[in-house]
């Protein structure tokens, strides 16, 4: 028996040894972390939404802060529109008494002053010549009068005064409630260097059935005649221009887990503060809830902080 146990031992030992080494090696293989040497980025996220950053990190990330303060918010509504002649400033001139046109003084395109003679007509009844006078200052846009013609009932001249024009803006139902008479409107031509300001004078009571629009009419000064009736323009209606006490720059706003947040500077880092926003003009937003005047918030590279918040979950899946 002695010898039997004795020489079985080596086998048993060897089994243990080889199995040990190999299985240890294998276990080790799986226990090994996939990224050896990865730095332990253990920023203490002590509480939800708090990000601790050192001044060095802030500098490297290019994070800059601003203070919550008052701002003027200009809410606008972009619309498309068309320049149309100011119907109040477009006159049709016809002969008071039918007769033969004896003389025509103005061509299409001529500027006329109110009271200026446009043509001379010899009345069929009295056979007296009388002048047809311009009823307003403007430009002759139509002329249906040649020497020797009978005037009949027709309009001989159309005079337009284009020193003001109308801009008919198409307002769609969703925006209609926002548009009011008296709001100022910035008009931009297709050549963006030509701009003008006017006010909404009328909102027409009747809409169009084809495209469901209502026309809001703006009276626009046109002293040097750059606004040509018939052209399409874009318009920005200033809906409101308010001074708000607490406002932040829009770049500061991030959405984290369905909440609108702003990163606020706190002790040793930043905090994601849920906020409620009010009016906004695309540059500056009013803060209704969540921030106090004078608080420092991240206005540049706030996304970096959002990314820092969520980076634990960032992964490269296949």
């Amino acid at each position, binding site marked *: 028996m002695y010898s039997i146990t004795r020489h079985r031992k080596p086998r048993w030992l060897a089994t243990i040894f080889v199995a040990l080494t190999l299985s240890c090696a294998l276990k080790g293989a799986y226990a090994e972390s996939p990224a050896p040497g990865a730095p332990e980025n253990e920023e203490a996220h002590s509480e939800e939404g708090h990000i601790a950053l050192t001044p060095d990190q802030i500098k490297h990330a290019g994070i800059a802060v601003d203070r919550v303060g008052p701002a003027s918010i200009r809410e606008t509504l972009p619309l498309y529109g068309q320049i149309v002649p100011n119907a109040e400033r477009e006159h049709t001139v016809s002969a008071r008494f039918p007769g033969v046109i004896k003389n025509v003084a103005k061509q299409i395109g001529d500027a006329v002053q109110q009271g200026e003679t446009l043509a001379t007509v010899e009345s069929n009844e009295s056979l007296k010549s009388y002048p047809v006078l311009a009823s307003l200052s403007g430009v002759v846009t139509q002329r249906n009068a040649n020497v020797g013609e009978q005037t009949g009932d027709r309009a001989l001249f159309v005079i337009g005064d284009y020193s003001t024009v109308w801009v008919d803006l198409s307002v769609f139902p969703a925006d209609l409630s926002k548009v009011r008479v008296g709001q100022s409107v910035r008009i931009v031509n297709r050549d963006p260097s030509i701009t003008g300001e006017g006010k909404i004078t009328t909102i027409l009571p009747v809409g169009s059935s084809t495209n469901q629009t209502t026309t809001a009419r703006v009276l626009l000064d046109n002293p040097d005649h750059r606004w040509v009736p018939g052209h399409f323009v874009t318009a920005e209606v200033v809906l409101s221009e308010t001074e708000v006490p607490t406002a932040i720059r829009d770049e500061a706003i991030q959405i984290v887990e369905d909440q609108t947040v702003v990163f606020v500077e706190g002790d040793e880092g930043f905090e994601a503060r849920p906020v409620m926003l009010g009016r906004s003009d695309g540059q500056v937003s009013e803060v209704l809830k969540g921030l106090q005047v004078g608080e420092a918030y991240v206005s540049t590279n706030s996304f*970096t902080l959002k990314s820092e918040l969520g980076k634990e979950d960032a992964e490269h899946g296949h």
Partner: protein
Amino acid sequence: MIDALIQFSIARRWLIIFLVAAVAAVGVWNYQNLPIDAVPDITNVQVQINTEAPGYSPLEVEQRITYLVELAITGLPYVEETRSISRYALSQVTVVFEKGTDIYFARNLINERLQQAKSEMPAGIEPVMGPVATGLGEIFHYAVKAEPDARQENGAPYDATALRTLQDWVIRPQLRLVPGVTEINTIGGYEKEFHITPDPAGLLAYALTFDDLVEALPKNNANVGAGYIEKNGEQYLIRAPGQLADIAAIERVIVAHRGNVPITIADVAEVGFGKQLRTGAATLDGQETVLGTAVMLLGGNSRTVSEAVADKLTEINKTLPEGVIAEPVYNRTVLVDKTITTVQTNLLEGAILVVVVLLVMLGNVRAALLTAMVIPLSMLMLISGMVETKVSANLMSLGALDFGLIVDGAVIIVENCILRLAERQHHLGRLLKLNERLQTTFTATREVFTPSLISVLVVILVNLPILALTGVEGKMFTPMAMAVIMALVSALILSLTFVPAAVALLLTGRIEEKDNAIVRTAKSLYLPTLSAALRFRLPVLLGAVAFVLGCGWLATRMGAEFIPNLDEGDVAIQALRIPGTSLTQSLEMQFQLERAILELPEVKTYFSRVGTAEVASDPMGPNISDGYVMLKDHEEWPDPNKSKAQLLEEIGEKLALLPGNAFEISQPIQLRFNELISGVRSDLGVKVFGDDLGQLLRSGNDIAEVINSIEGAEGVKVEQVSGLPILSVEADRPALYRYGLNVADVQDVLAAATGGEDAGLVFEGDRRFAIVVRLPEQLRSDLRTLERLPVPLPQGGFVPLGEVATVKLAPGANQISRENGKRRLVVSANVRGRDLAGFVAEVQQKLDEQVEIPPGYWLSYGGTFEQLESATERLTLLVPVTLVMIFALLMMTFGSAKDAALVFSGVPLALTGGIISLWLRDIPLSITAGVGFITLCGVSVLTGVMMVSAFRDGLANGKDIDASIRDGALLRLRPILMVALVAALGFLPMALNTSTGAEVQRPLATVVIGGIISSTLLTLVVLPGLYRMFYRNPKSTAESELVEDAVIS
């Protein structure tokens, strides 16, 4: 048979020499075809099917493309798994085939099926298979850059678009022709595009739509061939050119007539060069760049191919415009050369040491040189074998080779031949005649042939479990085992043929039989030790047993790792930002990162890929970047002695300065492998399969909660599937009804406005550039403008988009992963401080109890625990089987279980030294170290067999037991010492080397050296005593053998 072979070799010695020379020549020739790389290729047989779908969101990609591709693939033979991801504008289906499937066959199968799938896909969508390459394929990166004062022909500086154009149309086409290159992948810059950016107000003014523009272009942009006419015996070809050539020509294209006035494109839109909507970008040292990557064809020789690419690039650089260069930033040759140099130095130094040992111990120059000849010869045979079995030469496959071990067999034979020849000369008192010499050579060879055969067989046997490894470990270590086996078999064949033949040819003169000084000293030291060991055999034995047990305990205390990390010399940093990060933002963060890292003086360059390259072999979102930090040579560092670990720490410190990024640090090749073989990489992955993404996520979160509550869980993570901000423009159907619009009318306007619509190509020679109609950039990016986008009405007029659709911003699916044809979500967890199997069992039980999975959803468990389980299972079966086989082999040799057991006792003794040396050098246990232990088994069996057979010979010759043992031990002292010395010294350079790649071989060499020292000492001291115990009385031998046999059976 073996006798006949040896006899034949001796008789036809010249023929044998000639044959060996021929085999060597074949080896030299084969060397040209041997694939050489730094590390073994661990990629599985996989085919990637990439489908680009510009503008498609993940959900649409999955529904319209991924599903169809998967459906087509379903049912293909030899498929192991399919997995897919669908993300913005890209569908990638990865089909993994069974090991050993021919990749071209696999691609053919897929190609056939794809043809069917294509017909069901949306127009213009084309699934493409990824390049025929493996994880080692990305062998060469270059950056195309321009000097700041370099100017294009038109006087403008080279911008990202111009550089990209050069890459696409000058560099890439030429590099693709380099043999061995399967693909040149590009990332960065912008493809040149002609952009027509209409002003919405302008379109309104002329009552035009995007479509009118898009339709006008093809009608004005084609060359037409019109046959030929014959005239006066000549044939005139007729063509009508009409292609647009430049911006001015595009501007003049007429779109419509309004009041008899033609409206041209210039009237309603701006035409210019625009930026494509790209999915990826590249950076170099904190600036944007254009990065090209040469991808090597599967099975190529990375060194040759990357060298060829580098040469070609130098050539191309001469033809590039002044001031523009394509600069190599990563060249695999560097790493391969470094690694190969390490291996070569190790092997060469080892070989020299072996020769020196032979010279000193044998004291015969001819014999030493002839033994040493076995080294290059077996190496050449190994090369042929490797080429034949398609094993590539790399650090792992060549790493375990020890020339000492290879020549062991030859050493024993030559040593014995010298001994016997000298004896015979001495006996006869004259030089031997030819036939006497041949006769003596034969008997001497025959005498010691058994131990060398046994040792080779033992090494082969212990390598078998390694060959049975599967997965990544298998791919890593199978070549190593194969190479060792092939080298040993070659050496064995040589010892049977070449060695006796050469001995017969060369050892002609007078042969000194006297031991030289070293051997004499050794013998004089050994004799008293042996006597003492024999006298106090029981205490010695007990001591040895205690030693073995102690080492066994030590082994369980030691750290363990997979394989030592191969230092590639460079660093890869993968930076991850939250999903939804825009490419521009990601680039900005990447620039900060690169500038910070470049502050380190050891860094040469830092280049990165952000997002997905043109060929989407690695589909990353724009929030992820793969960065490669190229380090300067160690000599150029301010402190050349700084270790890489230290540098990594400094890099880590720099990275910590950059908030908003998560990092994974690895190395270039390692990174690529991780991307390619990624299944679930954590210990346990619970996969939830089902249809609804929301439900999957809810279930996933439930599961994560449960797992988190279980002891030992660490890093529990739910796969990130959502979080991509998606702007949904949902058509308001009642509103559409009022306006008489279709949903498509709204969608088309939106797609054209933000995504852009293709309107043909502009040709410049071979180069072709897309014409795209798209909103101007400042309008595209403004949400408010989008709401105001005019949608033309059928009856004239327009309606703003916001009026007929609601624009909603909400986080949506970031990427949709599928596996084997079903949506899948993975909850992964690692386990610390408890056994994996128990943990998995508990997880399964708790999930069954606590988590309710809705019908139609199911769970499956995966992760590395599976592999560990299967590997452990395999090994627990195979290791004992192997040991039994070794034992059986020894029994067959000796015809005695007792002797076999005695020889076997050397194995644990050998292992002790290995463990102690590892412990002393503070190297953790690893598979490489395991391979060292395997080698040790072979060596210890070899010495044991030599010892025991000498004892037996003594007994057989009628000597008494003590005399047999003493004489046998003294007789074998020289060969055993030689075998031990050559094997140990052969590995010495490997154990001490610190250059690139050495860290893989170090554990192996350390184990072997330590083990051989212990094994030799213990064989010489413990084995005689043990033998003495078993054979107290020579007369009882037969009896005890009977008992023995009874026990075994």
